[in-house]
């Protein structure tokens, strides 16, 4: 049995990392169970592209609400290239693996910043309301 590092290479690819981190956020902040199912049933390149499209559409709502960063156009193109090169199964396994791992420090910081900005927003609204009462 020859251990391959192709899976590790795809896992470490910046585009897969970006999409994986987005999937992780979507899963943990938006309970996006549907995207996991879509990816699970994607067998061909076309169905995988369709699953990614639906995932991005679902994520868009969350990204707008919480001011999150979306995957870039370049990352999407790179994902397509990787699927062409390695096939759906390998890219999907690498992508879902990112959704499984513990969130990195960067993500935690981002979430903290969001929470802080929400608190700030709320306090601004409260103070404005308080001001109008006076």
């Amino acid at each position, binding site marked *: 049995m020859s251990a391959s590092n192709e*899976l590790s290479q795809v896992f470490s690819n910046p585009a897969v990392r970006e999409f994986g981190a987005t999937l992780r956020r979507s899963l943990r902040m938006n309970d996006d169970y549907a995207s996991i199912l879509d990816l699970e049933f994607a067998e061909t390149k076309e169905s995988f592209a369709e699953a990614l499209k639906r995932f991005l559409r679902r994520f868009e709502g969350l990204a707008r609400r919480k001011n999150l960063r979306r995957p870039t156009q370049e990352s999407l193109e790179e994902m397509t290239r990787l699927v062409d090169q390695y096939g759906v*199964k390998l890219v999907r396994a690498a992508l879902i693996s990112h959704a499984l791992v513990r969130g990195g420090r960067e993500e935690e910081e981002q979430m903290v910043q969001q929470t802080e900005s929400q608190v700030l927003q709320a306090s601004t609204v409260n103070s404005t309301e308080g001001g109008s009462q006076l």
Partner: protein
Amino acid sequence: MPYYITKTGLDAFDTARAWGLAVVVNVLTEDEVVLRHEDWAFIVNPLMPVPNSTIASSLAWRTLIFEQGWQRVFMTAKGGWSGKRDQAKQIVQQQISPLLTNLQNPANTVALGTGESLPGGLDPTGFKGLRHATRGRYQEGQLEVPEEHWALACLGMSTCGTYRYAKEAGQTNWLVLLPVPQKVRFSYFRDVQDLFRLSGLRRYHGVQNAAAHYAVQLAERLCRRAAAQGSLQDRYAAVLYFRLFGAGQQTKPAQGNQLRLELLMEAIAQDPHRTQPMLEWLDYCFRLGSTKGAEDLALAATELVMRWDLDAYDRLVRILVKYQAQGRIKGDHLPETRTVKEVMSHVSL
């Protein structure tokens, strides 16, 4: 002077004999013993020459009678297990000198067909084939092996074999596991025995699941030792496993095979510190898989440990990510990126 356990083709019987001989030699010499696996034989090499003293006078030997494993080895003998145990110990005590002399010859052979019946709890090939009358008047006798080899094998299985009880769909099962040594060195046989005494889970989904979990637990212990000692000292080639199930009044054999351990041993030998989190994570998958409604996870983890291929890995992460989405995995139990990378590095495409 090395002793040779030449292979007969009965895997569990041969491995159990090797362990049995290693225990006997260790008890006699009271010193380090090296057990090595070659293609054609198991080679037991004591550091000290075996003295002429009788084994019966050894305290360590006398304590072997208390091993619970004897009852399991002779589970098909129903109530007669203690008699069989005493018989096996008596044979070893009386025939150890000619047996050791014979085993010093690398060309020694085991003549099957006469002697003691091979118990089904030791090797599934010990069971007979058809028992009911057939048109062709098919008849099959017990598989008999020479009594001194029988006694060695029973001793080896009772000290180094693991029997796990599992009840599935109202059926009683015994899951039997026996590690196959590659190169093992021990000063006292109880050290090896302690290594094999691994706490099982409350529920297993088949014997493969039990074997895969056992392999991970064993590898984890070896990994800890390797991290402490600086390198992997003892290697195991495989875990032999088979299932026995209760069929009315009798116990019958079901499927059996062996789970190769080369990949895990290689991973530990390369870097035990990096392998440890991977093994802990796999152990967690088995533990979560033993809970109610998590059979798919148990089977996916089993498949990965047995095959280490992309399909198995893909299935495992998909199931885990679903569990995570359902809130069944707490944050602390999620793997770190480096753990996932370590698993990936062993997956073949």
